[in-house]
C-alpha cells in the first residue's frame, strides 16, 4: 500500500500533505495530554514495532506469505493519537531509508496508513466493545472480535483511500493529448485492483496478526494496554469535538484539491502542441536503445526547443552515456573482485 514517488501528481501530494498537518498537530497535542511523560518514549516503541511488524512474513495458504501493517494494533496498544505519530515515523524511515514509499507521497501514505487506518480501526473497535456491553468491561471474546473487525475495516478503508488517490490521477492530470501523466489507471480499474487482494487476503492477515498480538498482551500484561477510561475520562470525551471538526475540515478541503488541480491543468494547456507531437512520435521509438534513446528522440519534435534543445540534449545524453559506462565498469570490476576473493575461501 506504500505509494511510490511520481505515481501521484505533485498537486495531489501537496493536498494530502496539507491535510495531514492538522492531524499531526492534533495528535502531538493530544499525546502530550493523554500520555504521562514517562510514556512518551513509548511512541518510539510503537514506531519500532510498526516497522518491525511489517517485516513479519505471516504464512498464507499455498506457501506464500504476506505482511501486516499493524496500524490498528498500535492504536489498541498505545491509543490512536500515539499510533498516528508512530506509524508516520515508521513510514518516514521507510521512505528515507529504504525508498519504500515516496518522499513526496509521504503525506498521502500517512493519510491512508497513519490517519484513516488507526483512527477508523480504533473507532470500530470502540463501537463493538461499547455496544456489546453497557458496562466497562467487555468480554475477552468481544474485545478480540472488535480488534479483528476494526483492523480488517481499517486496513480496507486505507486501501480504498489509496485506490481513490490512484484512480483520480488519470481523471485530473492529463497532457494535452488526453493521456494520463501519472498513474494511468482510473477508478474503475484502480479500486478493484486494490480492493480485491486487500479484502480477500491482506485484511485477513491484518486481522489475524492484530488478534494474535492483542490476545497475547492482554493475557500477559493487560495493565499496559491503552484505554481512554484509565488516564482521565473527561478530556478524552471532550477531544471528540476537534476530531469531528478535523473531519469536517478535511471533507471541505477535498473540493479544494480538485480546484487546485484544475488551475494546474489550465497552466499546462499552453504547451499543447508539444504534447501532441510527442505522443505521435513516440510510437516510432526503438526499445532496443539505451534508456536515453527515447529521451533523445522526445525533445526533437518539440518546436520550442529546436536548435538549443538538440545541442543540449546531445550534450546531456553524452554525459549520461559516459557516466553509465563508468558505473557499469565499476560494477563489473566489483563483481569480478567479489568472485576472486570468494574463490580462495571455497
Amino acid at each position, binding site marked *: 500500500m506504500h505509494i511510490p514517488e511520481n*505515481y501521484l501528481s505533485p498537486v495531489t501530494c501537496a493536498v494530502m500533505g496539507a491535510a495531514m498537518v492538522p492531524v499531526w498537530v492534533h495528535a502531538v497535542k493530544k499525546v502530550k495530554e493523554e500520555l504521562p511523560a514517562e510514556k512518551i518514549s513509548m511512541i518510539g516503541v510503537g514506531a519500532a514495532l510498526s516497522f518491525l511488524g511489517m517485516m513479519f512474513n505471516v504464512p498464507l495458504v499455498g506457501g506464500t506469505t504476506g505482511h501486516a501493517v499493524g496500524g490498528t494494533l498500535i492504536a489498541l496498544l498505545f491509543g490512536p493519537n500515539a499510533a498516528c505519530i508512530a506509524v508516520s515515523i515508521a513510514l518516514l524511515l521507510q521512505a528515507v531509508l529504504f525508498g519504500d514509499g515516496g518522499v513526496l507521497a509521504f503525506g498521502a501514505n500517512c493519510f491512508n496508513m497513519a490517519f484513516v487506518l488507526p483512527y477508523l480501526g480504533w473507532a470500530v473497535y470502540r463501537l463493538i466493545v461499547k455496544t456489546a456491553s453497557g458496562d466497562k468491561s467487555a468480554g475477552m471474546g468481544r474485545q478480540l472480535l472488535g480488534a479483528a473487525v476494526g483492523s480488517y475495516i481499517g486496513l480496507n478503508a486505507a486501501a480504498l483511500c489509496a485506490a481513490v488517490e490512484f484512480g483520480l490521477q488519470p481523471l485530473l492530470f492529463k497532457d494535452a493529448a488526453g493521456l494520463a501523466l501519472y498513474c494511468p489507471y482510473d477508478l474503475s480499474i484502480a479500486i478493484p485492483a486494490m480492493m480485491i487482494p486487500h479484502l480477500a487476503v491482506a485484511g485477513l492477515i491484518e486481522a489475524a496478526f492484530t488478534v494474535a498480538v492483542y490476545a497475547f498482551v492482554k493475557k500477559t500484561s493487560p495493565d499496559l494496554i491503552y484505554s481512554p477510561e484509565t488516564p482521565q475520562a473527561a478530556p478524552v470525551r471532550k477531544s471528540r469535538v476537534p476530531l469531528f471538526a478535523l473531519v469536517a475540515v478535511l471533507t471541505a478541503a477535498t473540493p479544494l484539491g480538485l480546484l487546485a488541480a484544475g488551475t494546474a491543468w489550465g497552466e499546462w494547456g499552453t504547451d499543447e502542441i508539444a504534447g501532441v507531437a510527442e505522443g505521435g512520435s513516440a510510437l516510432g521509438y526503438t526499445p532496443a536503445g539505451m534508456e536515453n534513446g527515447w*529521451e533523445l528522440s522526445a525533445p526533437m519534435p518539440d518546436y520550442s526547443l529546436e536548435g538549443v534543445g538538440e545541442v543540449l540534449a546531445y550534450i546531456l545524453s553524452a*554525459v549520461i552515456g559516459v557516466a553509465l559506462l563508468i558505473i557499469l565498469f565499476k560494477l563489473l570490476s566489483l563483481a569480478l573482485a567479489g568472485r576472486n576473493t570468494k574463490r580462495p575461501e571455497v
Partner: protein
Amino acid sequence: MLPEWMSGADDYTPEKGGGTFAVRTIKSLGAVMSSLRVQRGHEKARAVPAWIKIILLLAGITALSIARSPLVLMGAAALLLGYLCLWPARDIASVLRPALAAAALAAVLFLPAVLVDRALMPNSLRVIAKVALSVIMVNIFNHTTQWNHITAGLRRLHVPGIIVFSIDITLRYIVMLGRLICDLLTSYTMRAVGKKRGSYGSVGGVMGVAFLRGSQLSSETYEAMRCRCFTDDYKGL
C-alpha cells in the same frame, strides 16, 4: 535387552514448510538490521549541513515530479549519474539496486496500460524514469548523511522536539527489538522442526514479548533521562 521401539528403524521425515515463515522473517529482519547498524555511507568531514541537504532533496524531488520536459529529466539524470560515477563501486551498487528495483516494479505496473493504449508509452516511460531518479536521489542523501545529522537537521527545520526524539528512539528500538525478535524466532525454529501449525500463535507471542520488552526499555529510558536532569520538556532536547 533393548525395547522394540528403540531397535527399529526410524522413518521420520519432517513435514515441509514447518517454520519457514520464521526463517524468512529472520532473513528480512537481518537485511534491515545490517543496513541500519552498519551505515556504510561515506559522509565527508566537511559536508553540506544536513538541513540544507534535506531542503535540496525535497526541492529536487518536487522539481523532478513537476517537470514535463524530457530535457529536465535528462539534466537530472546527467547530474546524478555524473556524480554517482565518481563514487566507489560498492556504494554505487547499493544506491542503484533499489532504484532499479523500483523502476522495474513501476514498469510491471504500467505495462498493462501501455499494452492497451500504445499512446500512453511516453508518459509511462517518463514516470518510470522519474521513479528511478527519485529513488537514486533519496539513496544518495541517505548514503552521504549520518542519521544523527538527519535528526539534527530536522530539529533545525523546526520539526517538534517530540517527533525528533521519537525518531531517534525508534531507530534505536528497531535495532534492539529487532535483535530480540531474531533471537526469539531462532529459538522458535529450533524447536518447531516439522511443525506446521501454530504459526499465528507464535507470531502473536513473539510480537507480544517484543512489546513487553519495549515498554520495559522505554520506562528505563525515561528513568535514565530523569536521572540526567530531564524535566519533561521535549523542546530543549
